């Protein structure tokens, strides 16, 4: 059983919902990223999404674009990210999902990626610009190595596609709360709840909702109808604000604590 699956089963047993923070790997540098991952796990993250930086992130808003660029400027590579997660295995058992655009993975080589990712303790991979129609070859290779290819579903996804995507999906479903790019928004979307109930008609897989989730009330709202909430830009904004590592970790601790509903 994959660690992602086990995590959601445990959440269900405990009667809890999941918290999935996203950070760009290598922003401001990979050593700090490792510290942030350990801290977020300690603060209650159930799964952590690590963004692989890309020069042309078309699905991302300004906050993650800038973060991705800072990471590239710091010299982050996919190979170094995997080295970092391999070392993290001794410090935390929180499941890690790589969140990437396709080209850096394609360039690394899919076979090589799968074997290195498996050896580095990666539990899932989500590829923003690989839709289901293109995913079959990759998902089969990943599945053989016990890595989940996480499927994205958008409010524009038709029922026909929902059926097709959920048949292949494993790990969890990532539901995009509204048509658009990543980034904090003042209001949470009512579209998301409709989307989640549409997805439920096709699969029993856990459903996480992301895009625009930036406040405690957004998380509480998502937890009402879905299995987990993904928070990205709101946390990344905290990273942008602080250069010094200890102060940065303190800032993330304070923000994440304020974000999470009291247990």
């Amino acid at each position, binding site marked *: 059983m994959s660690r992602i699956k086990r995590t959601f089963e445990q959440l269900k047993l405990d009667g809890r919902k999941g918290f999935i923070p996203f950070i760009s790997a290598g922003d401001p540098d990979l050593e700090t990223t490792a510290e942030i991952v350990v801290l977020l796990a300690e603060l209650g993250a159930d799964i952590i999404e690590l963004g692989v930086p*890309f020069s042309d992130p078309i699905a991302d808003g300004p906050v993650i674009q800038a973060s991705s660029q800072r990471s590239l400027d710091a010299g982050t590579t996919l190979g170094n990210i995997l080295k970092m997660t391999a070392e993290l295995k001794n410090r935390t058992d929180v499941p890690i999902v790589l969140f990437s655009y*396709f080209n850096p993975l394609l*360039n690394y080589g899919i076979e090589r990626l799968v074997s290195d990712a498996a050896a580095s303790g990666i539990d899932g991979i989500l590829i923003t610009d690989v839709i289901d129609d293109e995913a079959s070859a990759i998902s089969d290779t990943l599945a053989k190595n016990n890595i989940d290819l996480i499927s994205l579903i*958008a409010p524009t996804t*038709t029922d026909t596609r929902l059926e097709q995507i959920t048949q292949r999906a494993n790990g969890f479903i990532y539901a*995009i709360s509204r048509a658009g790019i990543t980034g904090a928004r003042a209001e949470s979307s009512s579209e998301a709840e409709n989307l989640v109930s549409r997805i439920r008609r096709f699969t029993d897989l856990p459903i996480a909702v992301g895009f625009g989730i930036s406040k405690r009330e957004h998380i509480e709202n998502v937890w009402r109808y879905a299995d987990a909430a993904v928070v990205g830009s709101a946390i990344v904004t905290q990273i942008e604000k602080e250069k010094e590592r200890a102060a940065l970790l303190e800032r993330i601790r304070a923000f994440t604590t304020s974000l999470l509903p009291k247990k």
Partner: protein
Amino acid sequence: MKHEPDEKGYWGDYGGRFVPETLVAPLDELTKAYFECRNDTEFRTDLSGFLQTIANRPSPLYFAERLTKELGGAKIYLKREDLNHTGAHKINNCIGQILLALKMGKTRIIAETGAGQHGVATATVCARFGLKCVVYMGTEDMRRQELNVFRMRLLGAEVRGVDSGSRTLKDAINEALRDWVTNVSDTFYLLGSALGPHPYPLMVRDFQSVIGRETRSQILAAEGRLPDILIACVGGGSNAIGLFHEFLQDDEVSMIGAEAGGRGEQLGEHAARFKPGAKAGVLHGTKSYLLQDSEGQIALTHSVSAGLDYASVGPEHAFLYDGGRVKYTSISDEEALSAFQLLSSIEGIIPALESSHAVAQAVKTAPQMSSDKLMVVNLSGRGDKDVAAVAEELGSDLGGTRLQ
């Protein structure tokens, strides 16, 4: 050889759709609408009517008598896309796509532009058909092409500067895609070249293939036979595929696509995607040859011509390259600049810097051919927009001996 993509939009290994899930439904809707129109008599009648009355088609096939004599080889014809309304081949595609947008009931048009030619053509058709128009343009390109920015605004378009990345075409496409993914329901993305996710490479090629169809009947009328060689510049590749496509099945017609060789061989100094050692990758929704670094990050590119200054190339070109049907060469900034001056002074035609790459290839190739051979060069745009930039590039040369 197969010239239609498969149902997923692949020519061999190239093409497809690599987009966020949110865009799949609008792309499906677009594909369905396009295939309904593609063979619809009424749509085709409307299209050819507007190509005539708005774009001023057919464009002439012009015998370049003095250039032919100067080079002393093949007989050279120029396909005069520079004489189209708005000054380039871009308008052909814009008319086609806006008719489709109207048919689909879309009310807002977005586009990207590099040098501004596609932006101007898009703003023009939006003005003509009364649709709201937003054009994304890198702020570096806005600085270099102030006149086109003003022209678009005059035509009623909103020009949005893009300040991310290299602030050029690639970044403008990123931002247009972000807009589209956010405003899928009312917005039509009028993409300007034969690239992007399926069905764009196919659709743009179809709308541009009027260039090749006209060329065939014009050369048959003038010479009674097909040309021996076709030459076009290749940025995204829409003017080239527009000329080539009609002749792909004619084995006796050879073809050269001229890429931007820029100012050096190193990554970042050129936009020649088919240089030896080139590698495929995925950018802006399509799989094709792609200039990238060792980590799969998209490389910066350079060309004196903004319209060729792009890291990837249309997927059908990638397929034609692998199969050897079309030969791809690269032309340096310097060669293009000298062809720019040559054509201006010898034929009275100021070519766009993009098209100057095709002319420069003709300068190299024509002398190696005998005088009974026929060459067609696609003069994809006119050079008025480039005069100031060329003056800057040439410095004192422009006011110097050559033009005295």
